[in-house]
């Protein structure tokens, strides 16, 4: 009769323990060797007390990659940040910038209270006011606009805003208020890349399937130091090139760290990447290495059309344009074609040019004709978490100034934000009475810095300026009202960055420490403003919004608080979803009509058409917002999901031929368009390009002492042969002059840059942003800490943006960061 009670087992256990007081050999030789270590890395201890440090998971915000992190807190102080080991995207890793997020929280120059300007704009005199005072003033001004029937005169201009931070503002507050005068920043980054993708394969963000690829071509991306998905793509690229010996070939005007770790660095003349890509495509067609089935089934061109078009782009021709040897172009093309599959990475180095859109289209075409699109190991559509969240409807009006000046670009699908100030100066489409900017640097991040400053200082052009920022920046210094925001480590949000696992990962950001002073998360302030303005929203705080979103998306909020991340364990990566055959019930439905011309099935009710007949008569291509109703594409005798369009009424095919480009007078097939200024350069003139380094982000990390300690000077990189011709030695002061203006900076003579290029990183050259960024303590207040006295460097760099024109590319409106022609002489 067995009495298998817990109590009796305990007695047996005690007996075992009494016998076993040492080696496990007592019961026979153990099989397993080693010490059992938990898979998670997430553990840390105080080096002083040995106590275990508490963990709070959250999400990074040091760049757009927004990796999942775990934050270690000791006695209410944030002491360490590491990658979240449970995250499938960044797999427990973050970069140097992510770890230095602590410096954002404890920045001695942080703004702690609302500030109101005293004296003239830009004088740097401020008065501390209460939140009530600040919001009373702001509300009064905002209410007046609404009462006068001009809510569109409230402009909201953001730099970095994503996830729920974005949805609270753009999908709730601004519609409730009634304004659609919204600015973003994409045009200074990679607007051309996205527009090119919208003209070609649909929704933007391409994800290179590194774990499964056999060869990587890289045009102008600094994967190992930057890139929109930095750690995700970097760690997988390293695994591919080190672990599997995958070849990585980088075309870049200078030796970035990515170029340094590549199998081969191929220097290239700025703005000529398109020529090389087209020549490679030509070789592929000539050699018969193309994927005939993909071209015929999924693109809107034929093999004959492609051959006829590409024949002029010979490797020899491309060599003349780019400097890349013809033999190299030819051999790489063949090697890449035989990789089966390969993938091409491209970023600002390739697209921040006059011909950026064509370059990106040429690159995507090269992958397409080889059948590398959306296949395992190829170039895939990005997959991100799709949250469900509260929305507020509202009638919105807008000032047409988000696309710069008339004629700036043909298809500015991501707007032309660096020319918003020019549009405001011009005034033809009105000017905002209230200009509010959030996590954005209108002065510093754009080109033509002086003009930006002049416009901001002019109260006739911008009567009232509000800055939402935790820090006192060059732009904040010119505001009338500063509302201190929290840092990302003190706020509530959910986020949705794309996943290199091709499986969406949902994650949140939650406060890890109590914010100092009177700083408030702006999304909470917005709830306050809404109440004051009598606007109804379905949530009363950022935290409430996140909770409600979790509920709507059927994700356990408590799980998110404890783990930070969640993904569907049953989800599997999906490749080739464009080929999914739709069932009748998908395309035979209410509102869905068939467009004979394009073969597209679309739901006209989602477009701007007022009636079905109107929609049918105008057709899919020409009906405004028709793409929003896209259902599927007829392919042969089937209807498939196709390449879903976004922002442009592209068909469901991979459009190598773009009717939209033809309509606006551009070549409908990807072509090489030379940068006009580069055709008229004088002897000795050079091309100014900018670049990023691994330890800094564009403009908002230079206040992080641990990062700026490593990188605090941005001398101009110049090739020794060129330097010698100009009599310039390493360290010499040089004058770099463009049509906009001139800067005096130091030369760094290096073998790692193209002889025609002068490369200056755009991170540095601050004159505000606090002690560590510029040496200048913030006028809004400075709280000295021991490390202020340990700052051992005096350099702060020279900003190249002073002399870079805010010039748009003619198709997308992209800021042509890498095109500027300059004269370079010893100062």
């Amino acid at each position, binding site marked *: 009769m067995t009495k298998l009670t817990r109590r009796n087992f305990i007695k047996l256990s005690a007996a075992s323990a009494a016998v076993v007081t040492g*080696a496990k050999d007592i019961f026979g030789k153990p099989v397993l060797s080693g010490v059992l270590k938990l898979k998670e890395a997430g553990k840390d201890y105080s*080096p002083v007390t040995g106590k275990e440090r508490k963990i709070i998971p959250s999400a990074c915000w040091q760049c757009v990659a927004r990796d999942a992190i775990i934050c270690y807190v000791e006695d209410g102080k944030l*002491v360490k940040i590491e990658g979240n080991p449970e995250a499938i995207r960044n797999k427990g890793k973050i970069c*140097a910038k992510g770890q230095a997020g602590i410096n954002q929280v404890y920045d001695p120059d942080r703004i702690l209270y609302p500030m109101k300007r005293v004296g003239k704009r830009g004088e740097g005199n401020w008065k501390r006011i209460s939140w009530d005072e600040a919001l009373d003033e702001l509300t009064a001004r905002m209410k007046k606009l609404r009462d006068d029937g001009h809510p569109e005169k409230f402009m909201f201009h953001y730099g970095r805003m994503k996830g729920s931070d974005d949805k609270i503002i753009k999908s709730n507050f601004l519609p409730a208020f009634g304004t659609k005068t919204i600015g973003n920043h994409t045009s200074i980054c990679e607007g051309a890349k996205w527009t090119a993708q919208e003209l070609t394969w649909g929704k933007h963000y391409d994800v290179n399937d590194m774990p499964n690829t056999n060869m990587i071509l890289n045009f102008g991306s600094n994967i190992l130091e930057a890139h929109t998905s930095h750690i995700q793509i970097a760690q997988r690229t390293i695994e591919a090139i080190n672990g599997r010996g995958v070849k990585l070939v980088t075309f870049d005007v200078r030796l970035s760290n990515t170029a340094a770790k590549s*199998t081969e660095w*191929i220097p290239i003349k700025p703005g000529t990447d398109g020529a090389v890509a087209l020549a490679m495509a030509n070789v592929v067609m000539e050699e018969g290495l193309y994927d005939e089935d993909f071209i015929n089934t999924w693109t809107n061109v034929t093999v004959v059309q492609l051959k006829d078009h590409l024949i002029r782009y010979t490797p020899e021709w491309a060599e003349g344009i780019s400097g890349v040897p013809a033999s190299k172009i030819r051999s790489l093309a063949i090697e890449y074609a035989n990789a089966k599959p390969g993938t091409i990475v491209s970023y600002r180095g390739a697209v921040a040019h006059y011909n950026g859109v064509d370059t990106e289209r040429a690159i995507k075409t090269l992958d397409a004709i080889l059948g590398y699109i959306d296949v395992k190991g190829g170039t895939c559509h990005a997959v991100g978490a799709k949250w469900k969240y509260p929305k507020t409807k509202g009638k919105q009006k807008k000032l047409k100034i988000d696309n710069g000046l008339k004629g700036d670009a043909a298809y500015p699908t991501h707007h032309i934000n660096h020319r918003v100030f020019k549009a405001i100066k011009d005034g033809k489409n009105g000017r905002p009475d209230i200009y509010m900017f959030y996590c954005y640097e209108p002065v510093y991040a754009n080109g033509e810095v002086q003009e930006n400053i002049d416009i901001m200082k002019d109260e006739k052009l911008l009567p009232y300026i509000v800055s939402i920022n935790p820090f006192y920046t060059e732009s904040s210094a010119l505001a009338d009202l500063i509302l201190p925001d929290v840092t990302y480590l003190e706020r509530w949000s959910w986020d949705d960055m794309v996943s290199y696992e091709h499986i969406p990962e949902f994650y949140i950001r939650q406060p890890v420490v109590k914010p100092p002073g009177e700083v408030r998360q702006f999304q909470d302030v917005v709830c306050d403003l809404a109440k004051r303005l009598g606007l109804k929203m379905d949530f009363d705080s950022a935290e409430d919004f996140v909770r409600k979103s979790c509920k709507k998306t059927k994700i356990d909020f408590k799980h998110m608080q404890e783990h930070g991340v969640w993904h569907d364990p049953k989800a599997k990566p999906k490749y080739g979803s464009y080929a999914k055959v739709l069932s009748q019930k998908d395309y035979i439905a209410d509102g869905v009509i068939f467009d004979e011309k394009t073969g597209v099935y679309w739901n006209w009710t989602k477009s701007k058409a007022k009636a079905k007949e109107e929609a049918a008569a105008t057709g899919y291509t020409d009906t405004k917002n028709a793409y929003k109703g896209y259902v599927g594409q007829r392919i042969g005798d089937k209807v498939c999901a196709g390449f879903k369009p976004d922002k442009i009424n592209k068909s469901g095919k991979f459009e190598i031929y773009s009717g939209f480009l033809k309509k606006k007078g551009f070549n409908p097939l990807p072509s090489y368009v030379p940068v006009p200024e580069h055709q008229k350069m004088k002897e000795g003139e050079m091309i100014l390009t900018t670049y990023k380094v691994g330890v800094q982000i564009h403009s908002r990390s230079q206040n992080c002492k641990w990062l700026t*300690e490593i990188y605090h000077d941005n001398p101009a990189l110049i090739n020794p042969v060129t330097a010698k011709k100009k009599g310039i030695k390493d360290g010499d002061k040089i004058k770099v002059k463009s049509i906009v203006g001139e800067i005096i900076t130091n030369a760094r003579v290096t073998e790692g840059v193209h002889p025609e290029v002068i490369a200056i990183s755009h991170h540095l050259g601050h004159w505000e942003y606090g002690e560590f960024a510029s040496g200048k303590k913030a006028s809004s207040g400075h709280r000295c800490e021991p490390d202020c006295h340990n700052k051992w460097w005096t350099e702060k760099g020279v900003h190249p943006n002073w002399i870079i024109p805010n010039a748009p590319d003619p198709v997308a409106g992209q800021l042509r960061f890498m095109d500027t022609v300059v004269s370079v002489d010893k100062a």
Partner: protein
Amino acid sequence: MGKTKVKEGMPDVAQERKGLSRRDLLKMSGVAVAGAVAATLPTKDAFANAKHLTGRRLAMAIDLDKCTGCHACSVSCKSEFDVPLGVWRSWVKVEEKGTYPNTGRFFLPRLCNHCDDPPCKKVCPTGATGRRDDGIVKVDEKKCVGCKLCIVACPYDARFSHPTKKVANKCDFCRHRVDKGVVPSCVNACPANARIFGDLNDPDSDVSKLVSRKAIQTLRPELGTEPHVFYISAEKLLEGGERR
């Protein structure tokens, strides 16, 4: 001394040592190869210390092929110990070699080498600098009088004087983490997994296997300090900018 740390300069890597077996290494460093643990009657202490294998020798291997010079390690170390500006426990040297267009850039992560025969320990007048049985060279801050002799004695520039505490300071292989079974901060942080850490005396450990199978270099071996930070693929750093 701290101010020069991040400037580019000649790395202090010397000769290559190919194909040395782990046993040879251990012989050279004077550590006896751990024999089999006798299956005697277990003692109370043995059970209590079951987690620590006797005869552990901690070491780190850094694969320079994988290192991309991202400085995640440098910042993670700064953060872990709140190291003041101007001094480093772990840092990365950068070197450019070659002529355009065949230019190369190489990275050398640096830290205390936890030598078997540490010069710093020899000169310490108070015994504040000590070496644990498992090889970690550490500073007992309470005993340090700030004479700075160890800082001068270290041939690897690994030590510094703490600006506020005025005592000697350096990398200690994150012993506060290691003693609890967690890898050092820099090892955990490296996105390329270029740093491998573990027990050199355990033939099954990753560091052990790497060190016995791959060609490794240490810094200034001619000084006889017997460093226990091993570099893999440092040849490219030594030769003239040759690429992979």
